[in-house]
C-alpha cells in the first residue's frame, strides 16, 4: 500500500515543532480566552441576582465549565481552518511544485495534512482542557477513573473528526485561491458565524428560528454536544438551560461530523485534481 501520506505527515510535524512562536501562540490564545473571557463572563453570570431555574436530577454547571467546551471547539476550529492554509505557502513559496510533479497521487498530500492537523488539534485541545481544569473547570465531576478515561477518548475522537473536516475544507480552499488576502477574508468570513451561531458560548434554545436553523447545520454545535456529553454527562443544567443528551444523539452528532469530513474530503480531492490537471 502506498504510504507517501506518512511523508507529508512527517513534514507537517517537523514544521509544527520547528515554528516555536506559532506553536506557543496557538496554545496561548485559547488559554487566554479561557482565562479572560471565561473568567470574566463566569464572574458576571454566576453572581447575577436573578435566580435561575433548578432542574432536579441535573448536574448544575457553572459558566466557566460550560464555556470550556466552547473554547476547546474554537481551538479545534482554528487549528483546522489554518491547518490546510499552509498549502498556500507551499504553493507560492514552497514545495507544492515538487509534490505535484512527483509520481505521488495528490490525495496523499491531503491525507498527510489532515493527519497532521488532527494531531495538532489533539495536542492543543488536550492542553487547553488541562489548563481549564487547573483554572477550575469541573469536567468529569464524580467520574470514576475508567469513566474519565472513556470520556477523554470520546472527546479526542470528536476533536479528531471535527478538525479533519475543517482541514480538508481549508486545504481545498488553499488549492483554489491565489493570495493570502483572499485567505484572510475567507477565514474571517467563516470563523465568526461558525463560532457565534453555535452553542459554544451560550444556549441556542432561545435563538430565533432562522438562527436556530443555522445552528443545527453548524458542525461546531455537534462537536460541542459531544464534548459536553463526555465531560459533563448526559443530564446537566447551565445558565438556566437544561441539557439532556442521549447516547443516540451523541452517535448522531459523531455521524454528522463524519459526513462533514467526508464532504470536505471530496471537495479537497477535486481541488487537488483541478490544481494538478492544468
Amino acid at each position, binding site marked *: 500500500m502506498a504510504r507517501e501520506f506518512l511523508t507529508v505527515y512527517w513534514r507537517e510535524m517537523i514544521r509544527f515543532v520547528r515554528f516555536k512562536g506559532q506553536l506557543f501562540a496557538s496554545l496561548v490564545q485559547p488559554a487566554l480566552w479561557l482565562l479572560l473571557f471565561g473568567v470574566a463572563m463566569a464572574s458576571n453570570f454566576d453572581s447575577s441576582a436573578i435566580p435561575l431555574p433548578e432542574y432536579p436530577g441535573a448536574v448544575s454547571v457553572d459558566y466557566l465549565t460550560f464555556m470550556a467546551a466552547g473554547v476547546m471547539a474554537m481551538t479545534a476550529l482554528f487549528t483546522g481552518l489554518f491547518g490546510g492554509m499552509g498549502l498556500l505557502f507551499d504553493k507560492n513559496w514552497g514545495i507544492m511544485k*515538487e509534490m505535484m510533479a512527483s509520481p505521488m497521487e495528490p490525495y496523499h498530500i491531503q491525507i498527510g495534512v489532515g493527519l497532521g492537523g488532527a494531531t495538532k488539534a489533539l495536542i492543543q485541545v488536550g492542553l487547553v482542557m488541562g489548563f481549564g481544569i487547573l483554572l477550575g473547570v469541573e469536567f468529569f465531576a464524580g467520574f470514576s477513573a475508567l469513566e474519565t478515561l472513556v470520556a477523554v477518548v470520546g472527546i479526542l475522537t470528536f476533536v479528531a473528526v471535527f478538525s479533519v473536516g475543517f482541514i480538508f475544507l481549508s486545504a481545498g480552499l488553499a488549492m483554489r485561491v491565489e493570495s493570502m488576502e483572499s485567505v484572510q477574508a475567507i477565514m474571517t468570513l467563516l470563523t465568526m458565524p461558525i463560532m457565534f451561531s453555535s452553542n459554544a458560548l451560550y444556549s441556542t434554545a432561545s435563538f430565533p428560528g432562522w438562527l436556530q436553523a443555522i445552528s443545527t447545520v453548524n458542525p461546531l454545535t455537534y462537536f460541542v454536544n459531544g464534548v459536553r456529553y463526555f465531560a459533563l454527562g448526559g443530564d446537566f443544567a447551565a445558565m438556566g438551560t437544561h441539557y439532556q443528551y442521549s447516547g443516540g444523539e451523541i452517535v448522531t452528532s459523531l455521524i454528522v461530523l463524519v459526513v462533514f469530513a467526508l464532504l470536505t474530503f471530496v471537495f479537497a480531492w477535486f481541488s487537488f485534481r483541478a490544481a494538478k490537471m492544468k
Partner: protein
Amino acid sequence: MASKIIEVKNLVHSFGDFKAVDNISFSVEEGEIFSFLGPNGAGKSTTINVLTTQLACQQGSASVCGFDVRSRPHDVRKSIGIVFQDEVLDRDLTVRETLEFHGRIYSMPADLRQAREKELIKLVELEEKVNERTKNLSGGMKRRLEIARGLMTRPKVLFLDEPTIGLDPQTRLRIWDYIKGVNEEGTTIFLTTHYMDEADRLSDSIQIIDHGKIIASGTAESLKNTLGEDMIYLETKDDEKAMRVARGIPEVSEAKRTSQGIELILKADGGKTMPDVLRALEAERIATLSVKMKKPSLDDVFVHYTGREMRDAPAENGLPKRRGH
C-alpha cells in the same frame, strides 16, 4: 547509434489564444546535454512542463524514456528528475530532510535513500550544511541542493529549467561543472536557458527557439559555422553602396544591413579578407567610419535568424522570480 530518449512530434501548446509552443519537433539522444536556447517567453518552460507532465499535452505527441506523456505520465514521472526554474524548497527543512522528503515521496526504500543522500550531499559539496535549514543557504547552495534532489532517484533524464538564472558568475561556473559531472555519470540532461554562454559551454546539441518555434538546431559549432568563419561589421558613409561592393567579393557569403551599419559573413579567414574588403570600398570611394571583426557567437546566430538580439527580446512575465536571496 545512440537511442532517442526524448521524442517530440508536432507539439502545440496554447494558453487561450496565445500559442506558447507552435508545432515543434525534436529528439534528444540518450546521454547528451541538450539545450533549449531562447529568450524569455519563447516557449521553453512550456515545453519542459509538457515533457515533465506538469502540463497536459494538447496537440502532437511527446515521449520521455519510451513513455508517452499522455498515456503513461506516471512512468514518465518515475524516470525523470526536475530542477525547477523558481526556487522550490521548504525553507524550514534542513538539507538532509529536503533530500529525505524527496526520496520518500518517490517511494525509495530507506537504505537506498540514505546511501543516495550521503553520496549526493558529497557530490554537491554540502557536507558542512547537512543540518542547516535551507533558508540559511546561499543562492548557489540552494541550487546545488535542488540539483542533488533532482538526482535522488537516479533519473535517466534530468530536466533543468534555467539552472543558473540569477546566480553570480563564479557560482554559475561551479553549477556547470556539476551538470557536466552528472552527465558524465550517464544522465541525459535537458536544459533550458536564455544564456548564450551556458548553451555554448555545456551542450552537445542546441535548439534555438523563438516565439514557440524552433528556428535553428545543431551543435554550438555547427550553428556558428552556418555564419561562416568570421564576421565583419562596418560603418560607412554609404551603406547601400558598400553592401553592393562587398557582395562582389568572393569570400563574402552574405552582406546585410544592421541597425548600425552592415554585417558581412565570411567563408574565409577574416584576417586575410579584411584588407580586400577595405581596398574594394576605397576603390569605389566609400569612406569607412569604423571596422570590427569577430568570430560568430550564438548571439549572432540568434540575430541572424530572428533579426533581433536575444537580450532585446520581450520578457515573459516581468523579471524572473528566482534567487537574489
